[in-house]
């Protein structure tokens, strides 16, 4: 999977080596995502003008994504929705990451805590993710808090496993043993020897968690358990579009979904490419 991005655009940047290419891809996709976030923040809060004179227009130069049944510009709604998705995804993945790091370190303390953490991971993986998010969202009364908690509480498992396996593997390394035989404290070893190995892994893990978080948020909102209907979320836009499918207003669903796909893909690319950069074996290919 990871090499897919590198080869994807080969034709475009023939003269560059892998390192330059990955940095270019990372910068371009990051600019795209920041652009979306910033424009949605600038647009945010303002209710879009409703203009019944221009309702249900097909895509044109004036309205690249068309307009909806209230004459609102779908492009602006989509950008606002994506911005919201990014914020929800960011908060949820950050919480999830903190949880994963804490549990990963906790599992390395002793055999008992390790068994406990594995058991907890198994427990959280035993209910289908989407159903679990729905349940948590219902439990917290829906809304932004419900979705964020739901997504955060279901996405920590894979990163916890990574952190746990990495610590386990590091513990068997000779230099760690030597360091401790030479009288260094556990904390010192953790900070000086383990952290430098863990941080890149965690960073890549977080970035790759993002797209899952965003997709799950959109799915739950689409089903009606997430953000409330007056938020400009992508899930809301798409569930509204279902009512107009039979009328043939395809642009209501097509463009917002495609934009969501592109955002998710951008995150996948950034994550994979950072992973490539940080892995010394592949960084200089």
């Amino acid at each position, binding site marked *: 999977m990871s090499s897919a991005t590198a080869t994807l655009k080969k034709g475009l940047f023939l003269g560059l080596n892998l390192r330059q290419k990955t940095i270019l891809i990372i910068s371009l996709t990051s600019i795209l995502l920041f652009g979306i976030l910033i424009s949605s923040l600038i647009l945010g809060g303002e209710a879009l003008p409703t203009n019944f004179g221009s309702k249900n227009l097909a895509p044109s130069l004036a309205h690249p994504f068309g307009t909806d049944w209230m004459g609102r510009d779908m492009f602006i709604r989509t950008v606002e929705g994506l911005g919201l998705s990014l914020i929800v995804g960011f908060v949820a993945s950050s919480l999830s990451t903190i949880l994963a790091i804490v549990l990963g370190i906790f599992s390395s303390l002793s055999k008992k805590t390790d068994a406990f953490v594995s058991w907890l991971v198994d427990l959280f993986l*035993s209910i289908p993710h989407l159903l679990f998010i729905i349940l948590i969202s219902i439990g917290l009364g829906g809304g932004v808090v419900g979705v964020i908690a739901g997504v955060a509480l279901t996405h920590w498992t894979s990163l916890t496993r990574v952190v746990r396996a990495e610590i386990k593997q590091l513990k068997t390394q000779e230099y760690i043993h030597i360091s401790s035989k030479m009288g260094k404290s556990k904390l010192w070893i953790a900070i000086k020897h383990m952290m430098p190995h863990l941080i890149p892994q965690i960073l890549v893990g977080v970035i790759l968690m993002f797209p899952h978080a965003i997709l799950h948020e959109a799915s739950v909102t689409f089903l009606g358990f997430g953000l409330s209907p007056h938020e400009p979320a992508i899930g809301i836009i798409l569930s509204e579009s279902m009512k107009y499918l039979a009328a043939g207003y395809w642009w209501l669903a097509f463009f917002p979904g495609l934009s969501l796909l592109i955002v998710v893909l951008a995150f996948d690319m950034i994550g994979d490419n950072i992973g490539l950069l940080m892995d010394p074996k592949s960084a200089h290919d």
Partner: protein
Amino acid sequence: MENEKLVGFAGKKALKLISLLVFVSLFSFWLVEQSPIDPVRAYVGEMAISPEHKAQLEEYWGVNVPPQEKYFNWAVNILQGNFGTSLIYKRPVIDVILERFSVSLVLMATSWLISGILGFILGVIAGMKRGTLMDKIIKTYCYILAATPTFWLALLLLMVFSVYLGWFPIGLSVPIGATADNVTIFDWLYRLILPAVTLSLLGVAQIAMFTRKKLIEVLSSDYVLFAKARGEKGLDLVLRHGVRNIALPAITLQFLGFSELFGGAILVEQIFSYPGIGQATVQAGLSSDVPLLLGIVLFSAIFVFTGNLIADIIYEFVDPRIRQQEAAQ
């Protein structure tokens, strides 16, 4: 010796399932208990009721009973096979779940099989032709699919095949006036196509990428080099040495995907109004049908557990390599 292992394995798994169900039920019960849902309100809806009737209902739903006791009552009832009555279907929860789940199983099994076979074939082709245009196309396809929102793909298919081409009706549920029993097998297949295609298309990505990676590993091994030196080549070589070695891990991976499959089914059933467990989940959630929702959670946990269990069985008993690796570790 082998028998002993079998008994030990079965015992361990049974214990695990029981402990899992206990904690899943506790956790989900607690979650629903936290929610601002008023069971009496959910039951009567917008109807006006007399205070006596309300008190009666409150007693029935145990509004004033402490949560521990409520959980205990619920759990004891479940042990006796009584999951309670669904608020929206006004029928025993267990009947609703069994009926809906069997409908969904058809959908899930179909797309599980198609995506597994298709993904495996695509992965083998990509791995065999590594670095060629074919490989790149398959990789890009998988990469994009992995980022595609399930419900958006479902909406697109619905637009293209139902709205434009008119091949399928827009709501694919049971025709008005007919009950689920007297629809013919063809009606079934007809309704199954679009949801199954959606889930299959999306399910391909993971298995194809996994197969590709494994095949490349196998093809760069010493025994393949030796086979090549003996003059084996092309498809024959891949079939004889590659596919045999990667089939089992791929099947295992496919069994581990039951959780994703269930999540996909929820979305797809909702969009195509396929009358399965996913649609029931959404309805139960939206109209606060707590007994049904909790029942579905328990059954979905058993469903996921079954997938993992089969994967474990393949691990422990079928694949000699994995057994050896474990012993070596």
